[in-house]
């Protein structure tokens, strides 16, 4: 009789009746063969693996994370609510100690969804991990969280949401942004002025294989986690680093994903991308589930797996060693950088444009944060799209000091609403979300 080492929860939600469009990678068929493989392997019958029905995320859950324009239900479909709800279900079960760890094998994904949402980017509408994390913080008082994003694409949405949060360590390991969507995630992207070094980007060169991923894990990710000491580790478990993935250029494999999961020991894993629906996902998902459960996955392999054919070159190995050194340097300088930025300006600005590739929207953002010595600082965002929609958003962080709270309300109350479609205040300490319409 098979029995797991750790009690492992699984939410499986393949959304067999939902697609971005009928031939889009994010379509009904995506998890069909994964379901076949998971069912045929009998994983759900194994003593110690428990399947849960996903909850639906609520509007309030989304409002802890996003500023959605014009409103949440215009941004998220029911499928997104189930997908975020599935992640939340696993989080709840872990914190209720009904399971030791769990995997939300859900779609659609969410790690490209940023704090402000005007539409879909990179197949993502709402950030399912962030929605789960902020729910767990609200309901269970979880404080320090590490998100390790192992999707092949830079998790720019999660990075944006936690850019100013010193209590959330965001580590993204991905194919170099010079060669892949969304084109960001360089090692010098380290977090905002109140949270420098809490964003860690590890861009890996194309054709990185198992060796390179595990080297990075052992020499950067694990030592950083060891020092950060998170209450929970969340893995954004994208599976598009696979050697058969049609939209990326990496050489990772099911054995590697399973081994990475075993070493990382995430409390919660959430599926992100991965579009090799036949050649990779069935095997990678089985490998991840077994690794989480502490089962022997040594025989979980793709039918066409030949490690020697996909092994990375010595040049790639040397390049990765250099990247890891740079990353560790960023991490080690984190405290210094924070002190330096506190000694600088009282308010810091950031201006950028964000392209919503899925919905073809261009957004321009002006962001101002109060560089606060007592908390992570109140934030305001002036966001305008090329369709002429403009919102003014204020985020009062979870542990805001009195002054930042007052500043936030003052910004919100005094904004000239005639210039905007909406003014929104997200008051995390009070778990409130206020909207004024212009």
């Amino acid at each position, binding site marked *: 009789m098979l029995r797991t080492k750790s009690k492992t929860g699984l939410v499986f939600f393949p959304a067999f009746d939902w697609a971005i469009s*009928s031939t889009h990678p994010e379509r009904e068929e995506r998890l069909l*063969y994964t379901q076949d493989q998971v069912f*045929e392997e009998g994983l759900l019958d194994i003593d110690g693996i428990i399947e849960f029905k996903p909850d639906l995320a609520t509007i309030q859950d989304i409002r802890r994370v996003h500023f959605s324009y014009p409103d949440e239900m215009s941004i998220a479909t029911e499928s997104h609510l189930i997908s975020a709800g599935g992640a939340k279900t696993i989080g709840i079960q872990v914190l209720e100690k009904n399971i030791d760890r769990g995997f939300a094998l859900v779609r659609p994904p969410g790690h490209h969804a940023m704090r402000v949402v005007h539409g879909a980017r990179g197949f993502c509408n709402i950030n399912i991990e962030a929605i789960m994390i902020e729910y767990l913080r609200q309901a269970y008082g979880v404080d320090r969280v590490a998100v390790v994003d192992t999707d092949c694409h830079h998790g720019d949405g999660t990075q944006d949401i936690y850019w100013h949060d010193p209590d959330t360590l965001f580590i993204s390991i991905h194919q170099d942004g010079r060669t892949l969507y969304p084109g960001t995630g360089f090692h010098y992207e380290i977090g905002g002025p109140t949270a420098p070094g809490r964003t860690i980007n590890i861009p890996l060169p194309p054709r990185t294989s198992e060796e390179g991923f595990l080297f990075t894990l052992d020499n950067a990710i694990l030592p950083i986690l060891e020092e950060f000491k998170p209450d929970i580790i969340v893995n954004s478990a994208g599976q598009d680093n696979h050697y058969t993935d049609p939209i990326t250029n990496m050489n990772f494999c099911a054995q590697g994903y399973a081994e990475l999961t075993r070493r990382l020991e995430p409390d919660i894993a959430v599926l992100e991308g991965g579009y090799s629906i036949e050649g990779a996902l069935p095997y990678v998902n089985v490998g991840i589930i077994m690794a989480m459960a502490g089962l022997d996955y040594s*025989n979980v392999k793709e039918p066409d797996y030949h490690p020697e054919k996909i092994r990375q070159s010595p040049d790639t190995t040397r390049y990765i060693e250099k990247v890891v050194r740079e990353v560790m340097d960023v991490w080690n300088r984190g405290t210094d950088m924070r002190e330096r930025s506190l000694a600088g300006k009282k308010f810091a600005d950031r201006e950028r444009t964000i392209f919503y590739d899925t919905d073809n929207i261009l957004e321009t953002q002006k962001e101002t944060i109060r560089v606060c010595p007592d908390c992570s600082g109140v934030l305001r965002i002036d966001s305008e799209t090329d369709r002429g929609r403009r919102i003014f958003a204020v985020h009062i962080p979870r542990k805001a000091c009195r002054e930042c709270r007052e500043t936030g309300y003052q910004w919100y109350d005094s904004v000239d609403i005639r210039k905007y479609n909406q003014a929104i205040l997200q008051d995390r300490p009070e778990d409130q979300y206020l909207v004024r319409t212009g």
Partner: protein
Amino acid sequence: MIIGLGVGGTHTDVVLIGEDCILRETKVPTDHSNLFDCVWKGLEEVTQDVPPESIRRAVLSTTLTTNAIAEGKMVETGMIVSAGPGIDPGSFRTGSHYYCVSGSIDHRGREIQPVNAQEIENVASRLLAEDVRQVGVVGKFSVRNPKHEIQIRDILGNRFENVVLGHRLSGNLSFPRRIATAYLNAAVYPIHSKFFQAVHNSLKKKGLNIPIYVLKADGGTMSLEASLHMPGQTILSGPAASVMGALPFASDTEETLVLDIGGTTTDMAILIRRVPLLDPVGCELGGYKTLIRSLHTHSIGLGGDSTVRIVNGSLKIGPDRQGPAMAYGGPAPTPTDALFVLGKATNGNMEASMRGIRNLADQLGISSEDTAHLIFDQACHEILAAAATMIEGINSKPVYTVQEVLEGHQVRPREILVLGGPAPFFAFRLASLTDFQVHVVPQWHVANAIGAALAKNTSEVTLFADTERGIVVAPEEEFYQTVKRDFDKKTAVGLAFELLRKKCLKEGAAETELEMEVLEEVQFNMVRDYYTSGRNIRVKVQIKPGLIPEYRDIAERLFNFCPLPGAT
């Protein structure tokens, strides 16, 4: 006339049913060491002086295979298992004659690694040397492509008494369950076939050349001949028989909880508008998780004869049974004894019951009557709690489409049907403890035999098509064909119905019983390189479980008893 026979833990019940009433009923003590004799005795009693040609059929629900599995009394069985990559197939070992061989098929049914004939030849030699006569052959994803299982069977040839192929047993995915199911079917084959051949021959000898049907775990029947191919289907037909016996009295507009309160256990099941709810994957028995289609039943170790004791100052009922109630000479107090103390039961040794309950009462420091009340109420509460847990389990079953999540259908029974020994007493108390409508099943004492008699044939067909590969396969039906690109869901459903119809008639169903319905029909657009390359279609159809149509409408009347002369 129809004969229904239900073997129970203590008694074997047999009924002879006519057009509008029970003509005869008899009870024979069950002798598990000689099941044939008690079955035969029962059959003889109800058929005495009955013209053989007037008997249309006999349906038997036995504990033969169930007990063989539960008690581990199965014959040595060889298993040949080909897995390919994935979980180590050694984890699913069924016994010492378990051989993992090469060969692998992927999730779409493509051959990844061929069968090695020499390897199979070697396994066959070893099995023969080990004197193994029964063999199960199972491949991972064999329901998507049965080629390897068939090849292995062909290599084994006719050197074994019986070879069970995994893909023929169920169209559902689950390699470990397929292994367990093939193993059980092979391992109970000799005991099952010997028993039913004996019944068949004995009836024939008596001039009773009547068709024999066997009840299955899903509450349906199959012909004796069909059961020889899948004897595993007969496990757990006992609880199924009782549920089918309760069926005519269930509401046809509501959901119903059926409670069969026996001596040792209480078995529960759910009816949805008179249709029994099936287990989504397959039943579990004796530690084996199988793909055997069965009613969704739940059993707890609490019945009329459960031992009542004081543990840490409070009452504990069951889960063991040490014997009958003290009122009937048993060694320990039971809920039945509580009924005696409360004056609800009378035809036994009241003194003994009083003694047993008083002993418990003294330990609790309350009166005997209060103790009896406490026992009775606690038994009711525990049964209701277990039912609630079962229903919760049914309702928390995950679903995989947005629509199903949003619809979120929940099972909420508003009616309880009670059968079994203490049924009337329990029904009364359950009614006052809940807001359910509670009814006692009339003739509850032979409900299992009646259920067996009136159950109709049930079957299921699973069909899988992949138009990119150009194949359609219905594994259980030995159906494997090529299809053109235009094969679609509608055609698939039509084909599945056709196969189902054929299967049922072969299993001995009458034309009138073929009430077919679709359980699942999904079609996925397969896209490769941004272009549609085919369709992936999955269809499951079934014969709705229920009672044979001619009797369905008059089933209620059947529960009148109008004895034929000569009945015991």
